[in-house]
């Protein structure tokens, strides 16, 4: 889906845990996330800590949006 949306002229950031799949399938901007059942969360933390964690991950996505890329790039 990432590729088709990007083909339509929308810049896409793929936030996912299993980045090798994202790489194989061909996403261009990738942000690695925490775990499969909770990519943007961590149930071991308090609600406030989780929000912080989530905020930082989405910030990486914002950085990815603003970075020109020629090839597949993982924003760690």
């Amino acid at each position, binding site marked *: *889906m990432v*590729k*088709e*949306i990007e083909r339509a002229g*929308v810049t896409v950031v793929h936030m996912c*845990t299993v980045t090798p799949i994202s790489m194989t399938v061909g996403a261009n901007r990738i942000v690695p996330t925490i775990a*499969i*059942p909770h990519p943007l969360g961590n149930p071991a933390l308090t609600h406030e800590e989780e929000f912080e964690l989530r905020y930082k991950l*989405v910030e990486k996505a914002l950085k990815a*949006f603003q970075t020109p890329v020629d090839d597949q790039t993982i924003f760690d």
Partner: protein
Amino acid sequence: MSFRVVHYINQFFAQIGGEEKADYAPEYREGAVGPGLALNTAFKGEAEIVGTVICGDSYFNENLDAAKATVLKMISDAKPDVVICGPAFNAGRYGVACGTVAAAVKDELGLPVVTGMYEENPGADMFKNKVYIIATKNNAAGMRQAAPKMAALALKLAKGEKVGASAEEGYMPNGLRVNFFEAERGSTRAVKMLLNKLAGKPYTTEFPMPSFDRVAPGPAITDLAHTTIALVTSGGIVPKGNPDHIESSSASKFGRYDISSFEDLTAADHETAHGGYDPVYANEDADRVLPVDVLRKMEKEGKIGGIYPYFFTTVGNGTAVASAKKYGEAIGKELRDAGIKAAILTST
């Protein structure tokens, strides 16, 4: 009543001549010629070659449009139920001619058609995903083995019967995976394959690795503060109760739901439909998969212009690439039409 078959062959198999006669113009003869006799025998009375179209390989390849048109007309005038081309074995121009004629018969005449050639014949790669190509040996000594397979597949197509897997029917894998039952169980086949691999003997993989296409990266966003971001997920986040019944696996659709009034997703209003991961965490707090709460804060802080009022969701569990492509196209179109330049897609 037996099926009517038209057979396409070259000047060599028609016993007209070799290279020196490769410029032979298309000719129609009644009944079977050369290898057509072997095919007739293989039909066992269920089908019969009513006519044969003969064309020199050089003539065909050098006068592609005209030759194709002439050949096609000869074939259609004979009113066949099914058409057979070749087999071409390893003869390159013949293989390309067979593939071209077969594809045209399928696309322009709408008739079932079978051809055959050796896997290294250039015509094979060009046409195996378009028409059924029976895999043959690399020279005419393979006729005895090729004719029955070509005849059998032609009969199946003429009868409208379901075509089995490539390994069962003998055609070259054409990009469509078909299930069938082997003689031995998978573990036994695997042990045999490993023993061959260890001994340096040849083995054939049951599944060649796939390749994925690429798309050019979208441009960097220069004014994020005034850019609206759209949210998409394959993690199956849906309004509580999954009102559109998106499937837990192999999703047949995607959902489009209003989040304009949500500052935060909670267990009261959202859940996951995805059957491929432990749902507990996403059901407790869907922001863990679709970060609405964080994006709302960033909107208030002026870091982003806003969030697109609808989010798109489907279940990525066992959902085929072709399906995902369709949903991506539809979502991409809506976003493009709405002037959206950026999207975050989350996956589980």
